[in-house]
């Protein structure tokens, strides 16, 4: 789990790549692609399939790296064409551009820090003046806009939307991505319990809100009751459930035989 946390610290594949380049003290214009690709893939392996969407972005970069790597490994073709570009060039350009924006965003952070010391004053328009509101003339606002023009705008948006939908796959119904990891939530409840001893069911839901997460959290609570690791109290129906954590350690789902 610690590895996953570390990986999530990277904003994306470019960020991870920059980190590796930095860590290895590599000249960005002369990336030892074989080495970096290996290290990059190592990181990816540690990621596991926690989040498919994030994962896929890192994989695209991995594919790019492997592609460059293979092109670098091929014997260089002797050509007169001096423009036979370094296969790494595009990646280098991307990395440099990204690095540049990381650099200016730090500068902007300083500017924001300074600007936050300047304070403004809310409007204090006397009530009788504020009450006077310039009527917004809808006719003037609409101008020469006609219903058919509006319809045209609408159609072009709807058309664009239907263009995006794959007519065959859209009939498959919604495929929900399994984002919730039951064993993780089971551990999280216990970690929360050790830290807080007495807490409420609602506390647990503060960070997670999908229906699925609520259900899974509830299942976890039921399991912990069965194991005698927590005690719960609820005065009235629909009241928040008060939970007292009795155990002092954490068990995994496998150990619990869940």
């Amino acid at each position, binding site marked *: 789990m610690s590895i996953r946390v570390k990986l999530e610290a990277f904003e994306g594949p470019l960020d991870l790549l920059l980190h590796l380049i930095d860590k290895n003290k590599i000249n960005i214009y002369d990336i030892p692609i074989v080495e970096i690709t290996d290290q990059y893939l190592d990181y990816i392996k540690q990621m596991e399939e926690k989040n498919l969407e994030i994962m896929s972005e890192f994989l695209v970069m991995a594919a790019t790296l492997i592609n460059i790597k293979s092109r670098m490994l091929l014997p260089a073709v002797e050509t007169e064409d001096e423009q036979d570009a370094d296969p790494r060039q595009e990646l280098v350009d991307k990395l440099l551009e990204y690095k540049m924006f990381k650099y200016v965003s730090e500068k902007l952070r300083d500017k924001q820090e300074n600007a936050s010391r300047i*304070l403004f*004053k*809310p409007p*204090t*328009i*006397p009530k009788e*003046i*504020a009450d*006077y509101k*310039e009527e*917004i003339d*809808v*006719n003037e*606002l*609409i*101008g020469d*806009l*006609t*219903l*058919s023009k*509006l*319809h045209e*705008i*609408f*159609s072009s*948006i*709807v058309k664009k*939307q239907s263009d995006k939908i794959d007519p065959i796959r859209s009939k498959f119904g919604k495929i929900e991505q399994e984002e919730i990891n039951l064993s993780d939530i089971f551990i999280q409840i216990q970690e929360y319990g050790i830290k807080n001893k007495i807490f409420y069911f609602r506390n647990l839901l503060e960070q997670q809100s999908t229906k699925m997460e609520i259900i899974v959290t509830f299942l976890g609570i039921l399991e912990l009751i069965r194991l005698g690791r927590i005690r719960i109290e609820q005065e009235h129906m629909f009241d928040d459930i008060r939970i007292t954590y009795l155990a002092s350690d954490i068990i995994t789902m496998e150990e619990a035989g869940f």
Partner: protein
Amino acid sequence: MDIKLVEARIEAILFTMGEAVELDRLALAIDHDEDTTRKIIRNMMDKYDDESRGIHIIELDGAYQLCTKASMYESIIKITHIPKKHVLTDVLLETLSIVAYKQPITRLQIEEIRGVKSDHPINKLLEYNLICELGRMDAPGRPILFGTTEEFLRSFGLQSLDSLPAINPEKLEDFKLEAEEEAEQLTLDI
């Protein structure tokens, strides 16, 4: 301490607070005793009397407040009466067309069609009185349903909200076909 700096601090504090600030709080903030603070403020009040200033400090029961001079009233009325230029930008037009043809519609549904958060255009259209809240959807979270206003419809020559559903895309297509047929008919007749 430099008297000028103290004056600046008092001005900044009164500006930010907006409301009347008690002498003792002011004195604490500028690290002076109350008597000195009062003297400094009185001195400042004289400076604000200068005719190039539009604001001044007033004393209210041992508290001080920054406000506009009464003589400025006319100018303030004038600026608040200068109408802001209202324009239907592309973003607003697009959102309006979605509300017009899909009403009643929730914010989320608008955002799904547009593909981007749409609080801003929705709020603007509400402000312009082109769309309004029609009620709430009987669904989790009871989201607000939006529709066009009567005023909007009237400016398009429609009598009431009831007349809008008739203006669906197919209908418009029909109108177009009809018109074309009629035009053809006309040519044949001649």
